């Protein structure tokens, strides 16, 4: 029900004029404005300007061409796969360790309180800061990248899991006692499902962090993966390739994000979306 607003927005007069066109056409056109503006300004910048710009800012057409070529030759896909492997390994380790430790911590409140400052320190430490150390210990390998990604994301998963289990409704717990459900069965059938939304939040955060840290690590020390391609392309003065890789990173990030949300909806359909509107990665 359209209500004429008390506080009309500036766009309403424009909208009135445009109302004669079919709705879907308008929506599509407007929705494309953003990307159109972006690509247009990109094109403009790549053509005009100094020599520096044209060297390092290839036109969108060129990037698209390189992207298409690299994809069809399977190169980008190979590197994307590397990135995915690095990231997935790191994330899965973090998830496993994080959930188990989180549950344990929640079970032994005393331990949880005692470790609070240490965990607080680790949560606020930017995960990427351990990269130089890991690199020293594990070398410039995929293991390092996965390791750093795991380290960076485990805290979010751990703390959210612990919080999810700790803040369980005492009524739920009492119900289990009434029905005589204890131990492992209680853990699996009652505690975990009850804490699932919070755990899912932690996993979602961890997912984002693991990906970001993986790509970042690849840029810094990688020998394979999309991050490596970006760094190497820029270093060897092939910017179009770097941009193509960045687009690939964007696509991978999107796929991961999307898969994460779908999974969350399937596994925890009752989880209420945080209405606070805060964006979290």
């Amino acid at each position, binding site marked *: *029900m*359209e*209500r*004429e607003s*008390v506080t009309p927005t500036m766009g309403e007069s424009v909208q009135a004029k445009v109302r004669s066109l079919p709705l879907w056409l308008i929506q599509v056109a407007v929705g494309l404005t953003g990307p159109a503006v972006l690509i247009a300004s990109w094109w403009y910048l790549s053509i005009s300007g100094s020599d520096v710009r044209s060297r390092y800012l290839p036109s969108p057409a060129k990037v698209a061409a390189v992207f298409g070529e690299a994809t069809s030759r399977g190169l980008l896909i190979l590197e994307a796969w590397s990135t995915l492997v690095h990231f997935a390994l790191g994330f899965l380790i973090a998830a496993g360790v994080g959930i188990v430790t989180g549950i344990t911590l929640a079970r032994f409140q005393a331990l949880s309180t005692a470790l609070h400052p240490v965990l607080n320190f680790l949560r606020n430490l930017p995960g990427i800061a351990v990269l130089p150390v890991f690199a020293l210990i594990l070398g410039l390998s995929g293991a390092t990248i996965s390791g750093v990604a795991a380290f960076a994301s485990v805290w979010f998963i751990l703390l959210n899991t612990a919080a999810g289990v700790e803040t369980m409704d005492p009524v739920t717990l009492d119900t289990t006692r009434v029905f005589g459900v204890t131990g492992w069965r209680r853990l699996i059938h009652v505690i975990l499902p009850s804490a699932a939304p919070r755990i899912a939040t932690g996993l979602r955060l961890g997912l984002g962090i693991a990906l970001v840290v993986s790509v970042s690590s690849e840029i810094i020390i990688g020998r394979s993966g999309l991050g490596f391609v970006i760094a190497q392309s820029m270093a060897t003065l092939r910017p179009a390739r770097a941009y193509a890789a960045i687009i690939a990173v964007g696509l991978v990030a999107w796929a991961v994000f999307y898969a994460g949300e779908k999974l969350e909806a399937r596994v925890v359909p009752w989880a209420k979306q945080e209405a606070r509107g805060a964006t979290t990665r």
Partner: protein
Amino acid sequence: MAAADERPRPMPTDTAIELDRAGRSFGHTVAFGDVSFSVARHSFVAIVGASGSGKTTLLRCIAGLERLTSGTARALGEPIEAPSPRRVYVFQDYSRSLFAWRSVIRNVAFPLEMSGVTKAEARSRAMDQLALVGLDHRADAFPWQLSGGMQQRVAIARALAADPEILLMDEPFGAVDAQTRMGLQLALLDIWQRLHKTIVFVTHDIDEALFLADRVIVLNARGYGLVLDDEVNLPRPRSHSETPVMTRYGVLRSQVLQILFEVPVKDPR
């Protein structure tokens, strides 16, 4: 009571609000239609209707928060086009209407600040309003710290602080318990009698309407307004123990029901 302010006013008329064949539709859905009545200044008018009868929409149109799609509405001699502090609207959902980031006294001071009064002056005048609703002792509390009934009183004090000619109230006591409601009704009548505002009060509760008002306007389910021909004419001050058992009360009640449900009611006599 706040001193008369310097805003220029049009020639005062005896009519506060005038609706002529007013209607509001959303596309094909009719909220209400063909409603005509006028409200005399300083009177207390209740609008009764079943849920979904468009009574809230009607009040919002009078407030200027929504526009009529047919007919006209005038207030204080001028067409109603936009919200105005001279016709303050008090929301049903007070918890959403009160400003969570301001304390009680600063909520009440808001309309005063808007009209250009200094912060200090606004605060002292707001204190007077709070005293009127009996909440001056909670001036520095925050809305979420108060009970529902108290929050609604803050909302009313805030509305009064705008020094309106007309007070438009949308089921303000709908969300409180019966006891609190009775207290609030008496408090409202007391304020009305002291300040001589024009009050238009929307409710689904027939008893509440009859208890409070001089005149009752009934919106039946089809959204078409019919005015109760007789004035309520029950003696004031109204009393919860005495007024509802008067004969005339029963007669009026049947009449309202009859209009509401368009069912002929047996003559109680």
